[in-house]
């Protein structure tokens, strides 16, 4: 995580379908199909998550994603590659991303 960009990474809440308390972290990359999620919390690969986050002024709630891969860095943080599983939510993400001002 680069200091100059840390604040611009999108904070996200990740709830699992089980009775575990939700985890949190930051989305380090986001596309309509998948995302990279950086968190101090350990979650097993294959687990389905429901993500809550803000994007371009809109709040996304319970966006379903599956953990495809995970990697633990030397600081102890987990890098998860998530794949969004709901087609309608993917389309909404695509529209929200397309509406963002280009950098």
């Amino acid at each position, binding site marked *: 995580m*680069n200091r100059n960009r840390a604040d611009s990474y999108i*904070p996200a809440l990740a709830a699992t379908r089980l009775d575990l308390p939700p985890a949190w972290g930051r989305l380090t990359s986001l596309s309509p199909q998948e995302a990279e999620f950086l968190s101090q919390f350990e979650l097993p690969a294959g687990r389905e998550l429901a993500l809550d986050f803000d994007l371009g002024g*809109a*709040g996304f*709630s319970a966006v379903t994603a599956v953990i495809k891969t995970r990697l633990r860095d030397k600081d102890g943080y987990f890098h998860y590659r998530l794949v969004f599983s709901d087609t309608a*939510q993917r389309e909404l993400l695509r529209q929200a991303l397309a509406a963002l001002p280009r950098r």
Partner: protein
Amino acid sequence: MFNTVQVICAAEKDRLHLRGVFARLGADAVFSADLNDALAVFEKARPAAVFFADGEEPPAEIQLREFKRVAPFIPVVPLLKRRDATRAVELMKGGAFDCVHAPWTAEAVEPVYRKALRLSGTALELDSNALRSRRRSAALALAAFFAFAGFAGGFYYGFKRFSPRAQAPSSFALPYAHPTGIVIRGDSALVSDWYSQGLYEHSLEDFGIRRVMSLPEHTPVAMAATADSLWLARADGVLEKRLLDARYTPVTRTPAFSPPPDSVCFDGLYYWTADSRSGLITRRMPGDALPALKTFKYPGGKLSALTCDNRFLWAADGALKSLVKLSLDDPEKILSRTELKAYASRTLKVTAVAAAGGRVWFAGEDGGRGTAFYVDEPK
């Protein structure tokens, strides 16, 4: 590695515990009792990161703001008194680097401490040629920007002065195709969609999406709002009462009604449901079960969707291509009928209607696309 961290904690017991945790991590921890004490230390030396206990005075949001003002690049980490992901995300939106959850064990603090101290900071380059060429490009880009800004300014002035003023649109395309319910609350419109099984909160100004809530367990077919709750009609004929909180938490539900209603509204005293297939309109008592009081036959052509306010029932009528106003006392009596221009499109199918603020809002499908529009309330 520069490993001095500042820890702000008023409680002596917590401070003692944290002293042990940071010592175990090999950190050089400087303790302060409160924010003022910490800012006084900041004037003399800058730590690599700041950790502060949440739930003490001043509130975490103010501490974050103060640290961001004094030292915007230092990672600031609240130590949460309990594992609350919603609060953690809110604090991260407010500028926190991350949050440590309770209990503040060395295992919980370590990854955040290590990550906070390993931040790479400003990108540095050894290749000064690249830096010079980047500066040249930046100067050229700046000159081009000013030239363009001058041209665009003149063009904008002329355009604004000589072009007619645009009217605000009264119809909007929806990014989903199967809306079933619409509710107006303040400056927002809440629309349900059966196909994507979602609730979409739109800004009334431009109908941009503000929030999306997924309802994977149910198929919403109609919606109504009261002052403190949202009623969601499901495809199986059950009406769910939900709170108007961030997750629309379900509270109670009715037994399954037959036929399953596809319109629902609250007139301030009674609830009303309607079934567009049979044209039956039912007045219901308030309560968890919404028992039926009386059923009426819709007197118009083809009932597409029904809503109400505290004066009238409003129906979108696909056969009459009109908005029909009915009496609350006797819904079998038409008070007025106003043709809707939107029905000029032969493929329009209105599926939801809502009345609020002197306007009647409609949502529906038109040629395979979702649409929403409003008309001023007819006199």
